């Protein structure tokens, strides 16, 4: 099936079934809500909703969960501009110029350009996703266990190196995630590993309670430390949403640059929406003839990052759909949702489940249009939602997490697991560790182990199999260079410290 026929097939399956269309709409609506409301990110929302998609078809489930992700990118800008609280990590940078524009009475154009920029970037990224995924998936059909092992290693290392915090801490969290993922039955021998005789652990620890604990409960606990009531000053009067011609002229370059930056970085492990928005902002500031306007309400400072985060969100789907390797934590949740529904994302998705593959791609085109409608004319509704006091939202978010964890297996054991990881997440945040590498390691661990063991079985225990195949060798050399770079930076710092100490002495 060619790309054009495939897309037509996808549109038919989405538009032909009102339920599929409904789930697409539900996803982007919930996503916008998640983006608007601070305190619950797309990972937490996906975790809560995964159990409720058990009764749906794989296509409906994935379409809805993916909609939550890119919908949250749209919604995140609303709080950044109107309340100065980023609803999403990817919208943090929008606060700088978005809120300044709101202070100058230009909240409308800021929201307008954010939504339109997101739409344009999202659409460009979906077109690229459509064009790149198919050839990449076809190429990946020739990959064997050594290539997959190398790709997973590269994904994990790049994620740890590109991430926001310390690389060393990220690698440690990644390893902790990998180790804990092996609790359960051994895939080859079927013997229990670290289950301690607890029957619930024979199936392993579920991704849903772990993710909800690390991203939902831990954040709520952190907020509980300080919050009695957060008074929010919301700009309720939003007028003139359509940007003027001058605004357009200023923002068009930023939108296009943001789209390209987001797409390129989104594909990289650890890149995604957050990094794209930060890099887009700094590039806009550098290429601007009037960089002094940045931080004082420059429309490019809103258009660029908002376009980049949407494009980055879509770009992250390329490695997931084509190779079956999630490049970030949200994609890891989506990867789990695929597996729960018995669908393996990756090169075989196109041949085994063409309805799912093309349906998902078609839903992105439709979802982007839905989001534009939801975010421009209905902006007043989101402003009203922002006025709900946090002290009322706080117990609701807890209840959502608890029921989400319970409903996976209808067992309170998952609630205990979620609380345990919530406490773990709360403590690691205090010391600058991140939950995202943990989740990525946790999700990729079975893939890592299976392919590693299969490679060794194939080669009769010869470790050189990883270097004798061109793709795995190239990828592992890349990982090796990353490690060398990390070590080089480490020794450089260590030497500087040593010299300082020597001078003092």
């Amino acid at each position, binding site marked *: 099936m060619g790309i054009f026929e495939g897309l037509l097939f996808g549109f038919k399956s989405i538009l032909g079934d009102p339920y599929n269309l409904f789930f697409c709409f539900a996803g982007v609506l919930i996503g916008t809500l998640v983006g608007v409301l601070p305190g619950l990110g797309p990972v937490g929302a996906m975790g809560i909703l995964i159990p409720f998609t058990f009764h749906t078809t794989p296509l409906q489930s994935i379409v809805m969960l993916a909609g939550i992700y890119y919908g949250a990118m749209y919604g995140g800008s609303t709080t950044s501009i109107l309340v100065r609280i980023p609803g999403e990590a990817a919208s943090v940078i929008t606060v700088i110029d978005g809120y300044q524009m709101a202070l100058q009475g230009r909240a409308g154009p800021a929201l307008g350009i954010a939504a339109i920029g997101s739409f344009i970037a999202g659409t460009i990224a979906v077109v690229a996703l459509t064009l790149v995924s198919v050839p990449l998936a076809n190429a990946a059909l020739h990959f064997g266990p050594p290539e997959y092992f190398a790709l997973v290693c590269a994904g994990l290392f790049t994620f740890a190196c590109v991430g926001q915090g310390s690389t060393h801490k990220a690698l*440690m969290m990644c390893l*902790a995630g990998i180790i804990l993922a092996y609790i359960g039955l051994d895939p080859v*021998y079927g013997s229990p590993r*670290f289950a301690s005789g607890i029957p619930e652990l024979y199936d392993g620890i579920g991704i849903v309670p772990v993710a909800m604990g690390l991203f939902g409960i831990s954040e709520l606990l952190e907020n509980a430390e300080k919050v009695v009531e957060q008074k929010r000053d919301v700009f309720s009067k939003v007028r003139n949403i359509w940007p003027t011609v001058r605004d357009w002229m200023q923002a068009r370059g930023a939108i296009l640059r943001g789209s390209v930056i987001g797409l390129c970085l989104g594909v990289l492990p650890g890149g995604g929406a957050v990094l794209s928005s930060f890099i887009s902002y700094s590039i806009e500031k550098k290429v601007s003839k009037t960089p002094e306007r940045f931080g004082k309400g420059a429309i490019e400072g809103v258009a660029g990052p908002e376009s980049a985060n949407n494009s980055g969100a879509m770009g992250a789907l390329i490695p997931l759909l084509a190779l079956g390797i999630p490049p970030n934590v949200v994609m890891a949740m989506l990867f789990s949702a695929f597996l729960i529904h018995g669908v393996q994302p990756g090169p075989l998705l196109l041949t085994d489940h063409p309805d799912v593959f093309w349906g998902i791609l078609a839903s992105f085109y439709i979802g982007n249009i839905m989001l534009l409608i939801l975010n421009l004319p209905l902006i007043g509704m989101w402003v009203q939602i922002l006025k709900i006091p946090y*002290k009322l939202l706080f117990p609701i978010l*807890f209840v959502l997490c608890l029921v989400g964890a319970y409903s996976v297996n209808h067992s309170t054991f998952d609630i205990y697991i979620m*609380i345990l990881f919530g406490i773990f997440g709360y403590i690691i945040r205090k010391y600058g560790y991140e939950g995202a590498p943990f989740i990525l390691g946790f999700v990729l661990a079975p893939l890592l182990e299976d392919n590693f063991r299969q490679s060794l079985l194939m080669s009769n225990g010869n470790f050189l199999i990883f270097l004798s195949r061109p793709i795995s060798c190239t990828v592992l050399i890349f990982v090796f260079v990353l490690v060398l770079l990390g070590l080089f930076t480490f020794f450089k710092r260590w030497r500087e410290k040593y010299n300082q100490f020597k001078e003092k002495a």
Partner: protein
Amino acid sequence: MSDIVNIFLFLLAIFFAIGAYRLGLGSPEAPGPGFVIFLASMVLLISSAHRLQFSKGDIPLRLAFPRKGLKRVLLIIICLLLYAKLMPVAGYLLSTFILTWFLLFLNGIKIHRAVVPSVIISLLSWYTFVRLGCELPEGFIDFLR
């Protein structure tokens, strides 16, 4: 002193390395169930040991966990654990009502004013989740059906 997370990861790595060794490492020709776990644990062990040795100490405990905030967090954790214990016995509605009532009270809403929002949150969430196909425990109020 290094941070407590690092100490925890160090102990975790030791525990899993010993456990993986006991599970059986096998050989490179036929890797056993503990092979990959052992390798991952060893890398984690070396990383955390390195940080334990060279890290000059991160945030002190009392700064990381301020006393006033920690008290609220501990209260919430206890409340969540009690909720998990209570839900199968008392049912979803009653346990959720108690939980939300307490959380609202903890967030500064007066105890009598917290009753109505707690009832609404419990009933609305129950209705929504049941409609979504979730089987929630009914507890001892099962006879009301």
